[in-house]
């Protein structure tokens, strides 16, 4: 090993007897680290494509219309919980003080706690980290959330209220 100081004739005897090739040692460990990092890079590519695939599948599922029982009869300043588009998607329907009906996903866009309606303040409130959303648009107005609540599109048909789509 021409470039290894431990095998150098000038090195002390103890060093020649018990050579520790630090340079070789570091060389090998960094080579292995480079391999390990590249493996991590491959995994992250997989993760990115998996996320893209989930995005594609999500978009591919069209939401069908679903009746919201009792939705049309909701009083001013009241709210009603329902599920849309699947049984795993909690939503909240609110009739504000102007009589306007608005429906949103109940899942807070910060860390997914359930938002509740605060009639006095005309806001949707998330108790987990005190996040606030406006009732009219679902926009974040205070606290940690930065994205709006997905809006549930509503339609009235023959006196019944229907959820007909989700607008993110």
């Amino acid at each position, binding site marked *: 090993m021409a470039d290894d100081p431990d095998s150098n004739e000038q090195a002390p005897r103890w060093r020649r007897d018990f050579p520790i090739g630090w340079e070789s040692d570091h060389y090998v460990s960094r080579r292995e*680290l480079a391999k390990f*990092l590249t493996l991590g*890079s491959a995994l*992250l590519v997989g993760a990115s494509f998996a996320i893209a695939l989930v995005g594609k599948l999500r978009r591919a599922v069209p939401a069908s219309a679903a009746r919201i029982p009792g939705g049309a009869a909701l009083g001013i300043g009241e709210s009603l919980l329902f599920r849309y588009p699947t049984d795993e998607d909690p939503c909240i329907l609110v009739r504000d003080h102007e009589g306007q009906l608005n429906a949103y996903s109940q899942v807070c866009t910060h860390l997914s706690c359930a938002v509740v309606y605060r009639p006095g303040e005309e806001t949707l409130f998330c108790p987990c980290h005190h996040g606030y959303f406006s009732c009219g648009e679902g926009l974040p107005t205070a606290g940690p959330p930065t994205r709006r609540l997905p809006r549930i599109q509503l339609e009235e048909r023959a006196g019944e209220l229907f959820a007909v789509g989700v607008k993110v």
Partner: protein
Amino acid sequence: METRRQGLSLMTALCLLIGTLLVIQLWLVAASLDALYAGDVGVLVPAALVSLGMFAVNGFLLWYGADFDRRLKRVRRR
């Protein structure tokens, strides 16, 4: 002629470069997740393709390191 000392510098540089790209890829995954939840699905495929490009660069860097390693072994055997 390749030496271990050169190899050590090379491997250190490779680790730094690959590591930097890896951190950017990690950021891309986090940003993609955020975009997915925000319903901004249009950016997901481009982000995945950029990540793939970075992996290709990482693969090339690793290949370069492995090639250096092979040449080094040949020199040391002589």
